[in-house]
């Protein structure tokens, strides 16, 4: 037997810790997911703040010349803001509850396969240590991706 074959065989005695480490690391999104979630939350708050502030300032300026019109504008602003918030609300973190057609739960390996499928599809998904599958994104897009797995699912908003 050649040395190269022996080396491939000898890897059967590899330290379990190396196998475990090779499983756990899933790129920078996985490694820095907590920090990333924090940064994204801050960014979302900042964007929301910046989008609201200029409108409020404009309304104040308008109120000096035409108070009733400004009042209408304020109402419109409120409506518009509410729509924005509603849109933003569909983009969130969800815990995915998966089931097979017969109603039984998926095995750990099957959940992992779904997780890898979501990652491959470019989804911002995380598989926690206790096997909980969490995804972040637009609810409709998430549903579209999950429908392709063939399992029935429920999304629990975080």
């Amino acid at each position, binding site marked *: 037997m050649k040395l190269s074959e*022996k080396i491939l065989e000898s890897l059967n*005695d590899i330290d379990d810790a190396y196998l475990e480490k090779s499983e756990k690391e899933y790129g920078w999104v996985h490694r820095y997911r907590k920090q990333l979630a924090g940064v994204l939350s801050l960014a979302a708050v900042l964007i929301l703040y910046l989008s609201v502030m200029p409108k409020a300032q404009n309304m104040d300026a308008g109120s000096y010349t035409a108070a009733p019109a400004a009042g209408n504008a304020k109402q419109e602003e409120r409506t518009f803001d509410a729509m924005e918030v509603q849109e933003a609300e569909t983009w969130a973190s969800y815990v995915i509850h998966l089931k097979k057609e017969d109603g039984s739960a998926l095995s750990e390996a099957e959940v992992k396969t779904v997780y890898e499928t979501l990652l491959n599809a470019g989804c911002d998904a995380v598989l926690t240590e206790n096997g909980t599958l969490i995804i972040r994104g637009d609810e409709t897009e998430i549903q579209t991706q999950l429908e392709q797995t063939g399992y029935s699912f429920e999304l629990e908003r975080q």
Partner: protein
Amino acid sequence: MVEGETMEDREILDLYFARNEDAIRETDQKYGHYCFSVAWNILFDREDSQECVNDTWNRTWQLIPPQRPNRLQYFLAKITRGFALNCLRTRTREKRGGGEYEAALSELEAVLASGDDPAKTLAAKDLAETVNRFLKKLKDRDRNVFVRRYFYLESAAKIAKRYELSESNVNVILNRVRTQLKEYLQKEGYL
């Protein structure tokens, strides 16, 4: 326990120790897909891969007890991998191919071409210890890439996706680690 839920490894091991055949069913439910993928990467054949997984369950039943592995998942992976490599050896060279084993072997052969003299090689166990010592010296990322390639026999493309690296970056890492391995084996007297 609710049907469909997977047991903790400790509970599965307890079933083996109680000689309860549910142990195999639970093992299959929890690790069947994982072991199948280990075999599949080597064999690229659904029937043979499934046979390796079934052989793994039988072997595990024989080994536990007395053994009580710390990490059942990797204990099973090593058994499956062993069966898959044996299965591959029983095939004719013409029937090989397609799988990542041949490609991985060629990569190592290209670097270790002068290591075919049996007189220079030590016992398999010594070699395994040497390889483990070598892996310990590697940086985490390099070691992970090496393990995914040469233990799991995953393609560079798959490894790249797993670690969010480019495929060429994976190939560069593998090339560098193979060269380091050659130097290490030379130092240890294998080459």
